[in-house]
Protein backbone atom coordinates (compact mmCIF):
# COMPACT_ATOMS: atom_id res chain seq x y z
CA UNK A 1 0.00 0.00 0.00
CA UNK A 2 1.42 3.36 -1.01
CA UNK A 3 1.81 5.81 1.79
CA UNK A 4 1.43 9.43 0.88
CA UNK A 5 3.42 12.20 2.51
CA UNK A 6 1.31 14.24 4.86
CA UNK A 7 1.24 17.91 3.86
CA UNK A 8 3.22 20.13 6.18
CA UNK A 9 0.75 22.97 6.15
CA UNK A 10 -2.82 22.43 7.22
CA UNK A 11 -5.17 23.27 4.43
CA UNK A 12 -8.27 25.41 4.71
CA UNK A 13 -10.39 22.24 4.63
CA UNK A 14 -8.52 20.66 7.53
CA UNK A 15 -8.94 23.77 9.61
CA UNK A 16 -12.65 23.93 8.82
CA UNK A 17 -12.96 20.23 9.67
CA UNK A 18 -11.32 20.78 13.04
CA UNK A 19 -13.42 23.84 13.68
CA UNK A 20 -16.61 21.87 13.16
CA UNK A 21 -15.80 18.41 14.47
CA UNK A 22 -13.20 19.03 17.13
CA UNK A 23 -14.72 21.90 19.05
CA UNK A 24 -16.10 21.53 22.52
CA UNK A 25 -19.77 21.73 21.46
CA UNK A 26 -19.50 18.89 18.93
CA UNK A 27 -17.44 16.79 21.30
CA UNK A 28 -19.89 17.36 24.13
CA UNK A 29 -22.70 16.00 21.95
CA UNK A 30 -21.09 13.24 19.89
CA UNK A 31 -17.89 12.38 21.82
CA UNK A 32 -16.14 11.15 18.66
CA UNK A 33 -15.17 13.09 15.54
CA UNK A 34 -16.93 12.91 12.22
CA UNK A 35 -17.29 9.23 11.29
CA UNK A 36 -14.77 9.16 8.46
CA UNK A 37 -12.30 6.66 9.93
CA UNK A 38 -13.15 3.10 11.03
CA UNK A 39 -12.48 4.10 14.62
CA UNK A 40 -14.83 7.06 14.52
CA UNK A 41 -17.39 5.07 12.57
CA UNK A 42 -17.49 2.40 15.26
CA UNK A 43 -17.58 5.05 17.98
CA UNK A 44 -20.43 6.80 16.21
CA UNK A 45 -22.51 3.66 16.52
CA UNK A 46 -21.33 2.58 19.95
CA UNK A 47 -21.68 5.94 21.69
CA UNK A 48 -25.10 6.83 20.31
CA UNK A 49 -28.11 5.62 22.26
CA UNK A 50 -30.19 5.13 19.10
CA UNK A 51 -27.52 3.68 16.84
CA UNK A 52 -26.16 1.35 19.48
CA UNK A 53 -29.19 -0.84 18.90
CA UNK A 54 -26.87 -2.00 16.14
CA UNK A 55 -23.56 -3.74 16.66
CA UNK A 56 -20.57 -1.79 15.34
CA UNK A 57 -19.82 -4.46 12.76
CA UNK A 58 -22.15 -6.63 10.80
CA UNK A 59 -21.77 -9.61 8.49
CA UNK A 60 -21.70 -8.56 4.85
CA UNK A 61 -24.65 -10.80 3.88
CA UNK A 62 -26.89 -8.87 6.26
CA UNK A 63 -26.73 -5.61 4.37
CA UNK A 64 -28.03 -7.31 1.23
CA UNK A 65 -31.49 -5.83 0.68
CA UNK A 66 -32.87 -9.19 -0.43
CA UNK A 67 -31.91 -10.81 2.85
CA UNK A 68 -34.43 -8.86 4.94
CA UNK A 69 -36.08 -6.41 2.51
CA UNK A 70 -35.82 -4.03 5.50
CA UNK A 71 -39.24 -5.29 6.62
CA UNK A 72 -38.65 -5.24 10.37
CA UNK A 73 -36.96 -1.86 10.18
CA UNK A 74 -39.78 -0.49 8.07
CA UNK A 75 -42.35 -1.75 10.58
CA UNK A 76 -40.51 0.22 13.26
CA UNK A 77 -40.18 3.22 10.96
CA UNK A 78 -43.94 3.18 10.33
CA UNK A 79 -44.52 2.94 14.09
CA UNK A 80 -42.45 6.10 14.54
CA UNK A 81 -44.27 7.84 11.68
CA UNK A 82 -47.62 6.82 13.16
CA UNK A 83 -46.55 8.25 16.51
CA UNK A 84 -45.67 11.61 14.95
CA UNK A 85 -48.78 11.94 12.78
CA UNK A 86 -50.87 10.53 15.62
CA UNK A 87 -49.68 13.20 18.05
CA UNK A 88 -50.49 15.89 15.48
CA UNK A 89 -53.97 14.42 14.97
CA UNK A 90 -54.55 14.42 18.72
CA UNK A 91 -54.26 18.23 18.72
CA UNK A 92 -57.54 18.44 16.83
CA UNK A 93 -59.49 15.41 17.99
CA UNK A 94 -61.75 15.04 21.01
CA UNK A 95 -62.93 11.50 21.70
CA UNK A 96 -66.56 12.31 22.34
CA UNK A 97 -69.47 10.88 20.37
CA UNK A 98 -70.80 14.43 19.98
CA UNK A 99 -67.57 15.86 18.62
CA UNK A 100 -65.42 13.11 17.13
CA UNK A 101 -67.03 13.02 13.68
CA UNK A 102 -67.13 16.83 13.43
CA UNK A 103 -63.49 16.99 14.49
CA UNK A 104 -62.54 14.67 11.66
CA UNK A 105 -64.58 16.77 9.21
CA UNK A 106 -62.86 19.90 10.50
CA UNK A 107 -59.51 18.17 10.21
CA UNK A 108 -60.25 17.48 6.56
CA UNK A 109 -61.55 20.92 5.65
CA UNK A 110 -60.30 23.55 8.11
CA UNK A 111 -56.94 22.35 9.38
CA UNK A 112 -53.91 23.06 7.22
CA UNK A 113 -52.40 19.71 6.20
CA UNK A 114 -55.07 18.03 8.36
CA UNK A 115 -56.28 15.80 5.54
CA UNK A 116 -52.69 14.95 4.65
CA UNK A 117 -51.90 13.97 8.24
CA UNK A 118 -55.02 11.83 8.49
CA UNK A 119 -54.27 10.13 5.16
CA UNK A 120 -50.67 9.48 6.12
CA UNK A 121 -51.73 8.08 9.47
CA UNK A 122 -54.21 5.73 7.84
CA UNK A 123 -51.92 4.52 5.07
CA UNK A 124 -49.07 3.99 7.47
CA UNK A 125 -51.41 2.02 9.74
CA UNK A 126 -52.44 -0.27 6.88
CA UNK A 127 -48.80 -0.41 5.83
CA UNK A 128 -47.62 -1.40 9.29
CA UNK A 129 -50.03 -4.35 9.48
CA UNK A 130 -48.76 -5.49 6.06
CA UNK A 131 -45.10 -4.93 6.92
CA UNK A 132 -45.37 -6.82 10.20
CA UNK A 133 -47.04 -9.77 8.47
CA UNK A 134 -44.42 -9.77 5.73
CA UNK A 135 -41.63 -9.43 8.30
CA UNK A 136 -42.99 -12.53 10.01
CA UNK A 137 -42.93 -14.39 6.70
CA UNK A 138 -39.35 -13.24 6.04
CA UNK A 139 -38.21 -14.45 9.46
CA UNK A 140 -39.95 -17.77 8.92
CA UNK A 141 -38.61 -18.46 5.44
CA UNK A 142 -35.05 -17.52 6.37
CA UNK A 143 -35.27 -19.85 9.38
CA UNK A 144 -34.38 -16.96 11.66
CA UNK A 145 -36.60 -18.23 14.49
CA UNK A 146 -34.30 -21.15 15.21
CA UNK A 147 -32.23 -21.47 18.40
CA UNK A 148 -31.19 -19.28 20.13
CA UNK A 149 -33.87 -16.96 18.74
CA UNK A 150 -36.98 -18.97 19.67
CA UNK A 151 -38.27 -16.57 22.27
CA UNK A 152 -37.75 -13.51 20.10
CA UNK A 153 -40.14 -15.12 17.60
CA UNK A 154 -42.70 -15.35 20.41
CA UNK A 155 -42.12 -11.66 21.23
CA UNK A 156 -42.68 -11.00 17.53
CA UNK A 157 -46.01 -12.83 17.58
CA UNK A 158 -47.03 -10.65 20.55
CA UNK A 159 -46.02 -7.56 18.55
CA UNK A 160 -48.14 -8.78 15.63
CA UNK A 161 -51.15 -9.02 17.95
CA UNK A 162 -50.40 -5.55 19.38
CA UNK A 163 -50.15 -4.14 15.84
CA UNK A 164 -53.55 -5.59 14.95
CA UNK A 165 -55.05 -4.24 18.18
CA UNK A 166 -53.53 -0.80 17.60
CA UNK A 167 -55.05 -0.70 14.14
CA UNK A 168 -58.36 -2.08 15.39
CA UNK A 169 -58.70 0.47 18.22
CA UNK A 170 -57.87 3.27 15.79
CA UNK A 171 -60.61 2.12 13.47
CA UNK A 172 -63.35 3.39 15.79
CA UNK A 173 -62.03 6.91 16.30
CA UNK A 174 -63.45 8.69 13.20
CA UNK A 175 -66.89 7.74 14.53
CA UNK A 176 -68.42 7.21 11.10
CA UNK A 177 -70.57 4.32 9.92
CA UNK A 178 -67.53 2.31 8.80
CA UNK A 179 -65.94 2.72 12.24
CA UNK A 180 -69.02 1.96 14.31
CA UNK A 181 -70.03 -1.17 12.43
CA UNK A 182 -66.57 -2.59 11.92
CA UNK A 183 -66.04 -2.36 15.68
CA UNK A 184 -69.51 -3.77 16.35
CA UNK A 185 -68.77 -6.76 14.11
CA UNK A 186 -65.29 -7.17 15.60
CA UNK A 187 -66.35 -6.97 19.24
CA UNK A 188 -69.27 -9.32 18.59
CA UNK A 189 -66.68 -11.89 17.53
CA UNK A 190 -65.08 -11.49 20.97
CA UNK A 191 -68.51 -11.84 22.55
CA UNK A 192 -69.07 -15.21 20.92
CA UNK A 193 -66.32 -16.86 22.95
CA UNK A 194 -67.46 -19.58 25.32
CA UNK A 195 -67.90 -18.58 28.98
CA UNK A 196 -65.79 -15.42 29.12
CA UNK A 197 -66.81 -13.99 25.75
CA UNK A 198 -69.72 -11.82 26.83
CA UNK A 199 -67.99 -10.43 29.96
CA UNK A 200 -64.91 -9.64 27.86
CA UNK A 201 -66.96 -7.92 25.21
CA UNK A 202 -68.70 -5.91 27.93
CA UNK A 203 -65.37 -4.77 29.38
CA UNK A 204 -63.99 -3.90 25.94
CA UNK A 205 -67.05 -1.96 24.80
CA UNK A 206 -67.94 -0.64 28.24
CA UNK A 207 -71.60 -1.50 27.81
CA UNK A 208 -73.98 -3.49 25.68
CA UNK A 209 -73.39 -1.52 22.51
CA UNK A 210 -70.62 0.57 20.99
CA UNK A 211 -71.06 4.10 22.39
CA UNK A 212 -69.22 6.77 24.37
CA UNK A 213 -67.71 4.25 26.78
CA UNK A 214 -66.29 2.23 23.90
CA UNK A 215 -64.93 5.36 22.22
CA UNK A 216 -63.18 6.46 25.44
CA UNK A 217 -61.69 3.01 25.97
CA UNK A 218 -60.55 2.56 22.40
CA UNK A 219 -59.08 6.07 22.32
CA UNK A 220 -57.15 5.56 25.56
CA UNK A 221 -55.86 2.18 24.41
CA UNK A 222 -55.00 3.58 20.99
CA UNK A 223 -53.06 6.65 22.05
CA UNK A 224 -51.35 5.47 25.21
CA UNK A 225 -51.99 1.91 26.42
CA UNK A 226 -51.14 -0.12 23.37
CA UNK A 227 -48.31 2.10 22.05
CA UNK A 228 -46.57 1.89 25.44
CA UNK A 229 -47.01 -1.87 25.54
CA UNK A 230 -45.77 -2.15 21.96
CA UNK A 231 -42.75 0.03 22.80
CA UNK A 232 -41.87 -2.25 25.71
CA UNK A 233 -42.11 -5.37 23.54
CA UNK A 234 -40.18 -3.67 20.73
CA UNK A 235 -37.39 -2.83 23.19
CA UNK A 236 -37.22 -6.47 24.20
CA UNK A 237 -37.41 -7.56 20.54
CA UNK A 238 -34.53 -5.33 19.41
CA UNK A 239 -32.40 -5.96 22.47
CA UNK A 240 -32.72 -9.69 22.04
CA UNK A 241 -31.66 -9.49 18.39
CA UNK A 242 -28.34 -8.09 19.62
CA UNK A 243 -28.11 -10.51 22.55
CA UNK A 244 -28.75 -13.49 20.29
CA UNK A 245 -25.92 -12.49 17.98
CA UNK A 246 -27.57 -10.26 15.42
CA UNK A 247 -29.35 -11.57 12.37
CA UNK A 248 -29.26 -15.31 11.86
CA UNK A 249 -26.60 -16.79 9.64
CA UNK A 250 -25.98 -20.25 8.21
CA UNK A 251 -24.05 -22.33 10.70
Amino acid at each position, binding site marked *: *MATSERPQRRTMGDRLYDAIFSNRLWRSIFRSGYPN*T*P*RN*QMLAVATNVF*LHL*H*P*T*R*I*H*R*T*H*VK*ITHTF*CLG*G*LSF*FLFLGLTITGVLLMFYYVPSVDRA*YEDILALETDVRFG*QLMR*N*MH*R*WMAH*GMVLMVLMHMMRV*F*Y*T*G*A*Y*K*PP*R*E*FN*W*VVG*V*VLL*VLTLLLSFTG*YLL*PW*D*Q*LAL*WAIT*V*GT*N*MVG*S*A*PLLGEPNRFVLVGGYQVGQAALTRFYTLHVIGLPLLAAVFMTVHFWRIRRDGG*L*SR*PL
Partner: protein
Amino acid sequence: MAATPQAQAQASSAAVRGRARRAREEELLVWPDLVFIEFIAAVLFTILIVVLAVMVDSVLLDRANAAVTPNPSKAPWYFLNLQELLLHMHPALAGVVVPTVALIALGAIPYFDNSNEGQGEWLSTPMAWPLTWIGAAVGSIGTLLLIFYDESKHVQIYEWIANGKLNADSQAEGFHAWPHQLDFMRGLRGIQNEIAWPDWTLHVPLGDVLRTDLLGFPRIELDWNIPAFLVEQFIPVNTMIGLPLILSFVVHKMGIAKTKRDHMILQFSGFIAVYITLTIVGTFFRGEGLVLGPYTIFAHE
Protein backbone atom coordinates in the same frame (compact mmCIF):
# COMPACT_ATOMS: atom_id res chain seq x y z
CA MET B 1 -14.11 4.70 2.32
CA ALA B 2 -10.99 6.81 2.64
CA ALA B 3 -9.11 5.61 5.69
CA THR B 4 -5.81 6.91 6.92
CA PRO B 5 -2.91 4.43 6.99
CA GLN B 6 -2.88 4.48 10.77
CA ALA B 7 -6.53 3.67 10.95
CA GLN B 8 -6.14 0.82 8.50
CA ALA B 9 -3.25 -0.58 10.46
CA GLN B 10 -5.26 -0.21 13.64
CA ALA B 11 -8.25 -1.98 12.13
CA SER B 12 -6.23 -4.85 10.71
CA SER B 13 -4.27 -5.42 13.90
CA ALA B 14 -7.55 -5.40 15.80
CA ALA B 15 -8.76 -8.05 13.39
CA VAL B 16 -5.77 -10.28 14.03
CA ARG B 17 -6.07 -9.86 17.76
CA GLY B 18 -9.83 -10.38 17.82
CA ARG B 19 -11.79 -13.15 16.21
CA ALA B 20 -10.31 -15.18 13.39
CA ARG B 21 -9.15 -13.01 10.52
CA ARG B 22 -11.53 -14.60 8.02
CA ALA B 23 -14.61 -13.84 10.10
CA ARG B 24 -13.49 -10.21 10.38
CA GLU B 25 -12.98 -9.88 6.65
CA GLU B 26 -16.58 -10.93 6.10
CA GLU B 27 -17.78 -8.04 8.23
CA LEU B 28 -18.70 -4.48 7.35
CA LEU B 29 -18.99 -1.43 9.54
CA VAL B 30 -22.54 -0.56 10.51
CA TRP B 31 -21.72 3.07 9.86
CA PRO B 32 -21.86 3.68 6.90
CA ASP B 33 -22.88 0.39 5.29
CA LEU B 34 -26.06 -0.35 7.25
CA VAL B 35 -27.03 3.08 8.56
CA PHE B 36 -27.14 4.51 5.05
CA ILE B 37 -29.36 1.71 3.77
CA GLU B 38 -31.74 2.36 6.65
CA PHE B 39 -31.66 6.06 5.92
CA ILE B 40 -32.40 5.57 2.23
CA ALA B 41 -35.22 3.10 3.01
CA ALA B 42 -36.72 5.65 5.42
CA VAL B 43 -36.51 8.44 2.83
CA LEU B 44 -38.06 6.28 0.09
CA PHE B 45 -40.90 5.21 2.35
CA THR B 46 -41.55 8.75 3.53
CA ILE B 47 -41.86 9.83 -0.10
CA LEU B 48 -44.06 6.85 -0.92
CA ILE B 49 -46.41 7.54 1.98
CA VAL B 50 -46.64 11.26 1.31
CA VAL B 51 -47.42 10.59 -2.38
CA LEU B 52 -50.02 7.99 -1.42
CA ALA B 53 -51.55 10.33 1.16
CA VAL B 54 -51.73 13.19 -1.35
CA MET B 55 -53.30 11.00 -4.04
CA VAL B 56 -55.71 8.80 -2.07
CA ASP B 57 -57.94 10.24 0.64
CA SER B 58 -58.99 7.98 3.48
CA VAL B 59 -62.68 7.24 3.64
CA LEU B 60 -65.12 8.98 5.88
CA LEU B 61 -68.69 7.73 5.64
CA ASP B 62 -71.75 9.25 7.28
CA ARG B 63 -71.77 9.96 10.98
CA ALA B 64 -72.03 6.80 13.10
CA ASN B 65 -75.64 5.79 13.56
CA ALA B 66 -76.52 2.76 15.64
CA ALA B 67 -80.00 2.71 14.07
CA VAL B 68 -78.78 2.22 10.49
CA THR B 69 -76.94 -1.05 9.85
CA PRO B 70 -75.00 -0.93 6.60
CA ASN B 71 -75.26 -4.02 4.42
CA PRO B 72 -72.75 -5.60 4.39
CA SER B 73 -71.24 -4.73 7.78
CA LYS B 74 -67.61 -5.68 7.75
CA ALA B 75 -64.75 -5.80 10.21
CA PRO B 76 -61.38 -4.20 9.27
CA TRP B 77 -59.72 -5.99 6.36
CA TYR B 78 -57.24 -7.99 8.45
CA PHE B 79 -60.14 -9.53 10.39
CA LEU B 80 -62.21 -10.34 7.30
CA ASN B 81 -60.61 -13.80 7.21
CA LEU B 82 -62.21 -14.47 10.59
CA GLN B 83 -65.49 -12.96 9.44
CA GLU B 84 -65.37 -15.33 6.46
CA LEU B 85 -64.77 -18.28 8.80
CA LEU B 86 -67.74 -17.10 10.86
CA LEU B 87 -70.03 -17.94 7.94
CA HIS B 88 -68.98 -21.57 7.95
CA MET B 89 -68.89 -22.59 11.61
CA HIS B 90 -69.88 -21.82 15.17
CA PRO B 91 -69.14 -18.17 16.02
CA ALA B 92 -67.15 -19.07 19.14
CA LEU B 93 -65.00 -21.36 17.04
CA ALA B 94 -64.37 -18.90 14.21
CA GLY B 95 -64.15 -15.72 16.25
CA VAL B 96 -62.11 -16.84 19.23
CA VAL B 97 -60.94 -20.44 19.31
CA VAL B 98 -59.40 -20.56 15.82
CA PRO B 99 -57.46 -17.27 16.10
CA THR B 100 -56.28 -18.12 19.62
CA VAL B 101 -55.11 -21.58 18.61
CA ALA B 102 -53.55 -20.19 15.42
CA LEU B 103 -51.57 -17.58 17.36
CA ILE B 104 -50.40 -20.10 19.93
CA ALA B 105 -49.39 -22.50 17.17
CA LEU B 106 -47.57 -19.67 15.41
CA GLY B 107 -45.69 -18.78 18.58
CA ALA B 108 -44.84 -22.45 19.13
CA ILE B 109 -43.16 -22.91 15.72
CA PRO B 110 -39.58 -22.60 17.09
CA TYR B 111 -40.35 -25.13 19.79
CA PHE B 112 -41.56 -27.72 17.28
CA ASP B 113 -38.80 -27.10 14.81
CA ASN B 114 -35.78 -26.67 17.05
CA SER B 115 -33.19 -27.91 14.59
CA ASN B 116 -30.60 -25.51 13.25
CA GLU B 117 -31.16 -26.65 9.70
CA GLY B 118 -31.67 -23.99 7.05
CA GLN B 119 -30.95 -21.05 9.33
CA GLY B 120 -30.16 -17.58 8.03
CA GLU B 121 -30.80 -18.18 4.34
CA TRP B 122 -33.92 -17.93 2.24
CA LEU B 123 -35.57 -21.33 1.79
CA SER B 124 -32.24 -23.06 2.00
CA THR B 125 -33.24 -26.69 2.56
CA PRO B 126 -33.24 -28.76 -0.65
CA MET B 127 -37.02 -29.14 -0.90
CA ALA B 128 -37.97 -25.74 0.55
CA TRP B 129 -39.29 -24.20 -2.67
CA PRO B 130 -41.42 -27.17 -3.80
CA LEU B 131 -42.84 -27.43 -0.28
CA THR B 132 -43.72 -23.73 -0.25
CA TRP B 133 -45.57 -24.09 -3.53
CA ILE B 134 -47.34 -27.28 -2.47
CA GLY B 135 -48.44 -25.69 0.81
CA ALA B 136 -49.58 -22.50 -0.90
CA ALA B 137 -51.44 -24.33 -3.69
CA VAL B 138 -53.18 -26.84 -1.43
CA GLY B 139 -54.02 -24.15 1.13
CA SER B 140 -55.56 -21.70 -1.32
CA ILE B 141 -57.29 -24.20 -3.63
CA GLY B 142 -58.51 -26.29 -0.71
CA THR B 143 -59.96 -23.22 1.01
CA LEU B 144 -61.69 -22.12 -2.19
CA LEU B 145 -63.16 -25.60 -2.72
CA LEU B 146 -64.45 -25.73 0.86
CA ILE B 147 -66.05 -22.29 0.50
CA PHE B 148 -67.59 -23.32 -2.84
CA TYR B 149 -68.99 -26.45 -1.25
CA ASP B 150 -70.44 -24.62 1.72
CA GLU B 151 -71.97 -22.00 -0.60
CA SER B 152 -73.58 -24.75 -2.74
CA LYS B 153 -71.69 -23.61 -5.84
CA HIS B 154 -71.43 -27.24 -6.94
CA VAL B 155 -75.24 -27.36 -7.03
CA GLN B 156 -75.24 -24.30 -9.29
CA ILE B 157 -72.66 -25.86 -11.56
CA TYR B 158 -74.65 -29.12 -11.72
CA GLU B 159 -77.84 -27.27 -12.65
CA TRP B 160 -75.93 -25.14 -15.13
CA ILE B 161 -74.60 -28.24 -16.93
CA ALA B 162 -77.87 -30.20 -16.62
CA ASN B 163 -79.96 -27.32 -18.03
CA GLY B 164 -77.40 -26.10 -20.51
CA LYS B 165 -77.58 -22.53 -19.26
CA LEU B 166 -76.68 -20.46 -16.26
CA ASN B 167 -79.45 -19.43 -13.82
CA ALA B 168 -82.22 -21.40 -15.55
CA ASP B 169 -85.74 -20.72 -14.23
CA SER B 170 -86.24 -23.31 -11.51
CA GLN B 171 -90.06 -23.07 -11.87
CA ALA B 172 -90.02 -23.79 -15.61
CA GLU B 173 -91.07 -27.13 -17.13
CA GLY B 174 -88.26 -29.61 -17.61
CA PHE B 175 -85.92 -27.94 -15.14
CA HIS B 176 -83.23 -30.35 -14.04
CA ALA B 177 -82.70 -29.72 -10.36
CA TRP B 178 -80.08 -31.11 -8.00
CA PRO B 179 -81.32 -34.62 -7.07
CA HIS B 180 -83.39 -34.66 -3.88
CA GLN B 181 -81.58 -37.70 -2.60
CA LEU B 182 -78.40 -35.63 -2.53
CA ASP B 183 -79.89 -32.60 -0.78
CA PHE B 184 -77.74 -33.31 2.26
CA MET B 185 -74.74 -32.59 0.02
CA ARG B 186 -75.88 -29.10 -0.91
CA GLY B 187 -73.51 -27.71 1.68
CA LEU B 188 -72.45 -28.24 5.25
CA ARG B 189 -75.85 -27.06 6.55
CA GLY B 190 -77.47 -29.74 4.37
CA ILE B 191 -76.21 -32.38 6.77
CA GLN B 192 -78.17 -30.67 9.53
CA ASN B 193 -81.28 -29.68 7.62
CA GLU B 194 -81.80 -32.24 4.86
CA ILE B 195 -81.35 -35.44 6.84
CA ALA B 196 -84.29 -36.79 8.85
CA TRP B 197 -82.52 -36.83 12.20
CA PRO B 198 -84.45 -38.66 14.92
CA ASP B 199 -86.02 -36.23 17.37
CA TRP B 200 -83.96 -37.36 20.31
CA THR B 201 -80.73 -36.27 18.59
CA LEU B 202 -81.95 -32.67 18.57
CA HIS B 203 -82.39 -32.47 22.33
CA VAL B 204 -79.96 -34.59 24.25
CA PRO B 205 -80.22 -33.44 27.88
CA LEU B 206 -76.52 -33.31 28.63
CA GLY B 207 -77.17 -33.09 32.37
CA ASP B 208 -78.54 -36.65 32.31
CA VAL B 209 -75.46 -37.95 30.49
CA LEU B 210 -72.66 -35.98 32.12
CA ARG B 211 -73.53 -36.16 35.82
CA THR B 212 -71.41 -33.20 36.90
CA ASP B 213 -73.75 -32.83 39.90
CA LEU B 214 -72.30 -36.03 41.31
CA LEU B 215 -68.92 -34.31 41.45
CA GLY B 216 -70.40 -31.38 43.31
CA PHE B 217 -70.51 -29.08 40.27
CA PRO B 218 -73.72 -27.47 39.05
CA ARG B 219 -75.81 -29.71 36.83
CA ILE B 220 -75.51 -29.02 33.09
CA GLU B 221 -78.81 -27.71 31.77
CA LEU B 222 -77.78 -27.71 28.12
CA ASP B 223 -79.92 -29.41 25.48
CA TRP B 224 -77.37 -30.87 23.12
CA ASN B 225 -78.29 -30.62 19.43
CA ILE B 226 -76.18 -33.31 17.79
CA PRO B 227 -76.70 -32.34 14.11
CA ALA B 228 -75.93 -28.69 14.89
CA PHE B 229 -72.87 -29.75 16.87
CA LEU B 230 -71.72 -31.89 13.94
CA VAL B 231 -72.12 -29.10 11.40
CA GLU B 232 -70.96 -26.16 13.47
CA GLN B 233 -68.15 -27.69 15.47
CA PHE B 234 -67.22 -31.30 14.89
CA ILE B 235 -66.80 -31.21 11.10
CA PRO B 236 -65.08 -27.77 10.97
CA VAL B 237 -62.62 -28.66 13.73
CA ASN B 238 -61.77 -31.98 12.13
CA THR B 239 -61.42 -30.36 8.72
CA MET B 240 -59.09 -27.67 10.03
CA ILE B 241 -56.92 -30.15 11.91
CA GLY B 242 -57.32 -33.17 9.67
CA LEU B 243 -56.60 -31.71 6.24
CA PRO B 244 -53.20 -30.23 7.22
CA LEU B 245 -52.29 -33.52 8.91
CA ILE B 246 -53.27 -35.51 5.81
CA LEU B 247 -51.25 -33.10 3.67
CA SER B 248 -48.17 -33.54 5.86
CA PHE B 249 -48.70 -37.31 5.86
CA VAL B 250 -49.02 -37.56 2.07
CA VAL B 251 -46.04 -35.30 1.42
CA HIS B 252 -44.02 -37.29 3.95
CA LYS B 253 -44.94 -40.58 2.29
CA MET B 254 -44.01 -39.16 -1.09
CA GLY B 255 -40.60 -38.39 0.35
CA ILE B 256 -40.76 -34.64 -0.38
CA ALA B 257 -40.78 -33.54 3.26
CA LYS B 258 -38.29 -35.30 5.47
CA THR B 259 -37.35 -33.06 8.38
CA LYS B 260 -39.30 -30.97 10.88
CA ARG B 261 -38.21 -27.85 9.02
CA ASP B 262 -39.70 -29.28 5.80
CA HIS B 263 -43.05 -29.87 7.50
CA MET B 264 -42.94 -26.43 9.08
CA ILE B 265 -42.42 -24.83 5.67
CA LEU B 266 -45.29 -26.86 4.26
CA GLN B 267 -47.69 -26.02 7.09
CA PHE B 268 -46.68 -22.36 7.38
CA SER B 269 -47.05 -21.83 3.63
CA GLY B 270 -50.43 -23.53 3.80
CA PHE B 271 -51.48 -21.34 6.72
CA ILE B 272 -50.43 -18.12 4.95
CA ALA B 273 -52.26 -19.24 1.79
CA VAL B 274 -55.45 -19.99 3.74
CA TYR B 275 -55.16 -16.66 5.57
CA ILE B 276 -54.72 -14.72 2.32
CA THR B 277 -57.48 -16.65 0.52
CA LEU B 278 -59.98 -16.10 3.33
CA THR B 279 -59.05 -12.41 3.47
CA ILE B 280 -59.51 -11.97 -0.29
CA VAL B 281 -62.82 -13.85 -0.34
CA GLY B 282 -64.06 -11.95 2.72
CA THR B 283 -62.96 -8.61 1.27
CA PHE B 284 -63.85 -8.79 -2.41
CA PHE B 285 -66.41 -11.57 -2.76
CA ARG B 286 -68.84 -10.91 0.06
CA GLY B 287 -71.49 -8.42 -0.94
CA GLU B 288 -74.92 -7.60 0.42
CA GLY B 289 -76.04 -10.09 3.07
CA LEU B 290 -72.50 -11.50 2.84
CA VAL B 291 -73.62 -13.57 -0.16
CA LEU B 292 -70.71 -14.95 -2.14
CA GLY B 293 -70.24 -13.17 -5.43
CA PRO B 294 -68.01 -10.70 -7.25
CA TYR B 295 -68.26 -7.50 -5.31
CA THR B 296 -66.06 -4.51 -4.94
CA ILE B 297 -65.13 -3.19 -1.54
CA PHE B 298 -63.66 -0.01 -2.98
CA ALA B 299 -66.98 1.78 -2.72
CA HIS B 300 -66.41 1.62 1.02
CA GLU B 301 -62.73 1.51 1.65
